[in-house]
């Protein structure tokens, strides 16, 4: 019900109208009607009051008339005389008996009769003081009876006679049924005085018409109104006169005379007066006025039925109600119409809007009147146009976007396929797993085959890995840390793929886990590759010397082979600086150059001699390259070392004279040109010494080859020691022939060096008896200082020849000396 109130404008407006307009109007109307009703009641009451007074007056007037009449009658001499006669007759029995029915003077009789006719009396009585009815004109049964103890002692006549006798004044009775006359009768009586005594009472039987005529006058009493006269009779209140609506009511009981006087006749008959709206003796609501009529000892009520009295009001009310109803209907109808004129276009608009809301953007509402609603509709239409346009544009864009999206999706798909990386989303709440196409491919499943739940997923993975995966997932769910787990997948065809699965938990705003997003990467090939790689790495590790250091040269990795070669355990190496394997023979400059190079980001290739833990050595050919971080900064170095110890040995052997340990001729042939060129390049003075052991053959012959070898070895070592500088070389060129290359600043220096060598050998004091220069072993040296000017190219051959020539000279000169080549 209330919903209608809220939802319909017509009802709302109607209700408001009712409240604001009709309600006050209705209230006003009710108040007016009420006041009118009250005023009407007041008026009617006043009118009835007046009527009551009028009727009372008329009754009193009637009574007064009767009294006067009777009083006059009682004063008429003939009547008085007649009474006297009767009185005497009764007393003295002087007159002839007529069995108590006495006669009176004819004159009196005539007079009485005439009076009776004129006044309309039914009868005239003369009653003796003792109560005997001694005379009656009509001569009914009552004549001759006694009113104190006769048959009619309870009649009105009896009562009125007694009162008149007691109060010595005229008295009137009410109407009541009088048996002798067989009809209702009322009596009026007055005492007759004469002869200084109360002669008796003259009474008159009244006809009711005159009095009741007052009651029959219903003027001003409408249809239901009546005059009710009532008197007390024993315990009852009886009607004292006929009622309009009950003509036979005379003498009949109307109400009980109870103590609780509330009905008008009860009040009136007890002397109270009043007027107003109340219930009458029938219990019917009436408007009435009531009062007491003392001369009759009556209560008198003038009343009209309330319904009849207020009929005009009721009619008015009905009329007003009808009019009001009609107006209401018209007005409410009008309101609804008016409201309708507003709501109809609104409803139309609503309908169109619904179409609109359902997606039909072409829907437009018809613009009705040019009022606010019409304006609303017009604007709606404009808005609809805009929306439609916009929608169209949007749709186009959406189509485009969709297409782009499709492309992107297929691209992604392709990418996933290429990368063998699938993506998935697990709706934790509903346990729905959605996989990208690639995952299906990886798992070898068709979407139809897959139940798309977490459990189905677990089924697809290798039984042995299920626990692992489950634990990883659960841990991630607990800790919120994305998981990475590697597991195997068993495809339907039985083949096994290895995948790397990642998952990341997504929570909603309330912190509840809702999704897990993740990827599956088919790493089977990679793993294979990795495995092979690992295998290779192992082999390499096993066989190849590799090491890695940080940027300061602290070892971060060494291969097994490296460890073996270096003689250290891995833990003895890790963390230590690489220089621990440096061999002291290696010139520092080499490492300086190495570090400079590699720190500069270049790769160093070099040959190093390294020390083993136990002091041994080994040669490696190392390639050291820097390693970079993502920013291009050098983070360290890796080196791969080729163990060339053997090669070196071989090399050494190949260039070393076994006996002396000096470079051999071969090496000389290699080195000499190189050194010569280098000296030229560096513009350094270069001296070549050709050294020959004096009379070596003789020695050999004397002392033996073994001793001869020993001498050669000594010469060799002497040469080595004298030529410690880098750039200086010592060779054994032949049997007892040695060579040396030395870099000098001046020729004189070379001579000095050569001489020192000669002296040193001599100082060895190796006995050589057959040596001509000395007893001891000596050498002869030929020296050629090579000019190293570039443009003057002394080539190798020349230099050698020149040195040789100088040697010949030295030998010729007596041996055990240094001879310098001279031009010339």
């Amino acid at each position, binding site marked *: 019900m209330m919903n209608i109130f809220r939802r319909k404008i017509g009802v709302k407006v109607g209700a408001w109208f009712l*409240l604001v307009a009709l309600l006050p109007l209705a209230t006003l109307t009710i108040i007016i009607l009420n006041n009118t009703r009250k005023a009407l009641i007041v008026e009617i009451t006043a009118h009835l009051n007046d009527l009551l*007074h009028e009727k*009372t007056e008329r009754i009193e007037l009637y009574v007064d008339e009767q009294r006067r009449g009777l009083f006059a009658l009682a004063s008429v001499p003939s009547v008085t005389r007649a009474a006297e006669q009767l009185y005497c007759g009764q007393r003295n029995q002087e007159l002839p008996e007529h069995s108590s029915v006495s006669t009176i003077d004819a004159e009196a009789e005539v007079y009485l009769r005439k009076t009776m006719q004129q006044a309309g009396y039914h009868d005239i009585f003369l009653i003796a003081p003792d109560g005997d009815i001694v005379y009656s004109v009509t001569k009914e049964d009552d004549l001759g009876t006694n009113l104190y103890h006769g048959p009619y002692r309870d009649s009105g006549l009896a009562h009125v006679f007694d*009162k008149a*006798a*007691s*109060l*010595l*004044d005229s008295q009137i009775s009410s109407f009541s049924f009088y048996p002798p006359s067989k009809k209702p009768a009322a009596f009026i009586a007055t005492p007759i*005085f004469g002869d*200084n*005594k*109360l002669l008796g009472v003259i009474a008159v039987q009244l006809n009711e018409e005159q009095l009741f005529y007052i009651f029959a006058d219903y003027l001003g009493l409408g249809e239901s109104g009546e005059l009710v006269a009532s008197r007390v009779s024993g315990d009852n209140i009886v009607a004292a006169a006929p009622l309009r609506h009950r003509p036979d009511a005379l003498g009949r009981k109307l109400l009980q005379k109870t*103590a609780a*006087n509330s009905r008008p006749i009860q009040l009136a008959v*007890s*002397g*109270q*007066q009043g007027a107003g709206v109340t219930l009458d003796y029938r219990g019917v609501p009436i408007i009435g006025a009531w*009062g*007491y009529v*003392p*001369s009759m*000892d009556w209560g008198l009520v003038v009343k009209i039925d309330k319904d009849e009295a207020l009929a005009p009001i009721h009619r008015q009310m009905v009329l007003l109600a009808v009019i009001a109803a009609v107006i209401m209907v018209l007005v409410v109808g009008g309101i609804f119409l008016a409201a309708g004129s507003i709501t109809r276009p609104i409803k139309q608009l609503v309908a169109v809007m619904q179409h609109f809301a359902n997606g039909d953007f072409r829907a437009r509402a018809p613009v009705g009147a040019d009022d606010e609603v019409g304006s609303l509709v017009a604007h709606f239409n404009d808005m609809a146009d805009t929306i439609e346009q916009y929608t169209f544009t949007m749709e186009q864009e959406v189509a485009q976007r969709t297409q782009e999206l499709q492309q992107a999706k297929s691209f992604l798909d392709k990418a996933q396929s290429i990368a063998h990386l699938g993506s998935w989303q697990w709706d934790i709440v509903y346990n729905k797993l959605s996989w990208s196409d690639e995952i299906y491919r990886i798992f070898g499943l068709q979407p139809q085959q897959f139940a798309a739940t977490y459990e189905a997923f677990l089924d697809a993975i290798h039984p042995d890995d299920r626990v692992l995966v489950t634990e990883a997932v659960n841990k991630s769910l607990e800790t919120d840390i994305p998981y990475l787990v590697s597991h195997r997948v068993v495809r339907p065809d039985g083949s096994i793929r290895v995948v790397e699965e990642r998952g990341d938990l997504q929570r909603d705003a309330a912190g509840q886990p809702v999704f897990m997003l993740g990827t599956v990467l088919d790493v089977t090939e990679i793993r294979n590759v990795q495995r092979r790689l690992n295998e290779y790495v192992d082999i390499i590790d096993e066989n190849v010397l590799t090491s890695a250091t940080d940027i300061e040269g602290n070892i971060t990795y060494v291969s097994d082979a490296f460890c073996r070669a270096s003689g250290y355990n891995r833990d003895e190496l890790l963390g230590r600086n690489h220089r621990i394997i440096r061999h002291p023979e290696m010139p520092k400059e080499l490492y300086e150059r190495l570090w400079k190079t590699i720190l500069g980001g270049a790769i160093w290739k070099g040959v190093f001699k390294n020390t083993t833990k136990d002091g041994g050595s080994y040669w490696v050919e190392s390639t050291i390259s820097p390693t970079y971080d993502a920013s291009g900064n050098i983070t360290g170095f890796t080196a791969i070392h080729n163990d060339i110890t053997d090669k070196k040995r071989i090399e050494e052997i190949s260039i070393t004279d076994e006996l002396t340990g000096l470079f051999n001729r071969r090496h000389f042939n290699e080195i000499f040109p190189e050194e010569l060129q280098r000296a030229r390049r560096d513009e350094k003075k270069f001296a070549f010494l050709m050294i020959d052991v004096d009379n070596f053959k003789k020695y050999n012959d004397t002392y033996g080859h073994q001793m001869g070898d020993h001498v050669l070895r000594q010469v060799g070592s002497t040469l080595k020691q004298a030529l410690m500088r880098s750039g200086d070389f010592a060779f054994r060129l032949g049997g007892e022939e040695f060579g040396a290359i030395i870099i000098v600043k001046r020729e004189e220096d070379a001579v000095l060096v050569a001489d020192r060598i000669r002296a040193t050998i001599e100082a060895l004091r190796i006995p050589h008896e057959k040596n001509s220069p000395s007893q001891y072993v000596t050498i002869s040296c030929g020296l050629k200082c090579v000019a190293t000017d570039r443009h003057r190219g002394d080539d190798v051959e020349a230099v050698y020849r020149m040195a040789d020539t100088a040697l010949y000279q030295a030998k010729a000169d007596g041996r055990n000396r240094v001879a310098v080549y001279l031009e010339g």
Partner: protein
Amino acid sequence: MKRTVFIVGILVLLVAAFFVARRQQSPVPVRVGILHSRTGTMAMSEQPVIDATLFAIEELNRRGGVLGRPVEPIIADGGSDPDQFALAAERLIDVDKVSVIFGCWTSASRKEVGAVVEKRNHLLVYPLQYEGVEQSSAIVYMGSVPNQQIKPAVKWAMDNLGRRFFLIGSDYIFPRIANHVISDLADLLGGAVVAERYQPLGGKDFDAIAEEIAALRPAVVFNTLNGDSNIAFFAALQRHGLGSADIPVLSFSITETELQAMSEVLPKGAMAGHYASWSYFESLPGVENRSFLQRFRARYGVGRRLNDPMVSAYEGVQLWAQSVAEAASIEPIKVRHAFSRQSMNGPGGIIYIDDQSHHAWKTSRIGRSTGDGMFEIVWDSQQPVRPEPFPSFDERGHWQELVDRYYQRWDNHWAPVVEGAR
């Protein structure tokens, strides 16, 4: 919705304010005068009437007063002196601005006050039975007139006690006129007045009278003595051995109150068997009387006696209130008019103010003292008797003349002027 509530609230407030405003008009009291003898020889009789009047006003106020206004009684003392009564009446009207005077007992006081209210177009409500022969438009006579009080009593006495009457009364207008009525009646009916004696008001010497009564042996003594003269009279009778069985006395001025006062002085049972004629006796049956007695005694005390004047005074206030209501005014002139046909059911039965004469239709009753301060009813007229201020045996003019003659005889007073006997 809030707006509606607001509007309705405003309306309610307005209506309430309107009603409050109406109520706030505190009604101005209506002043009424109560003028009786609070001092002097009449005080004993008149004080109870003041009480009854006040009681009536109290009950009236409890019912809302008149025209929505409370009634405020202003009590004045007539001092048992007619001149004082007149002055007091003037003061009540001119100074206290009363709307009505309830008061007077003696005819003298009534005549004096009557003149005052007539001149000022005011209103006197007179509660006592009196001699009649008066019909002032400014007075409403609540008490019985001779045809209601004296005529039936005389007829009854004639029928039941005997035909020889001894008349004794205080010397002022009421007994004089009353005795005239009795005499006329006696003539009419064949009775005989054996003696007619008067004592000055307040007189206490009744031995001579008692002797005379003893000598004449009337069938009944009609007593119109007033005030405490009654005590002396009955005491004298007692002394002369004249009991009610011998010579019954029918008094017209002795009520239950007087009986009570007399019983304090006279020997017990002294009053038993004597008669009185009133409209109201305390012993009357009926719901109205029972309720009235109960209410009055609840207010004034259990032992209080009620009598005819008190009840008439009580009824007078009520009828005045009804008249005011009908006239819708407290103006005496309008109220006087409205008194016509006012009626009520009083403790003594129906009271109806005759519109011609402004006298009251009342039931007549004769009671016999039972010796315990109460009267038993021996005769009841059963219905209200029409008041005839001017007894019908003679012309009105005759009675008026009679009254005037006495007035003149007494130097324009209503009682012979006796030095120091007031």
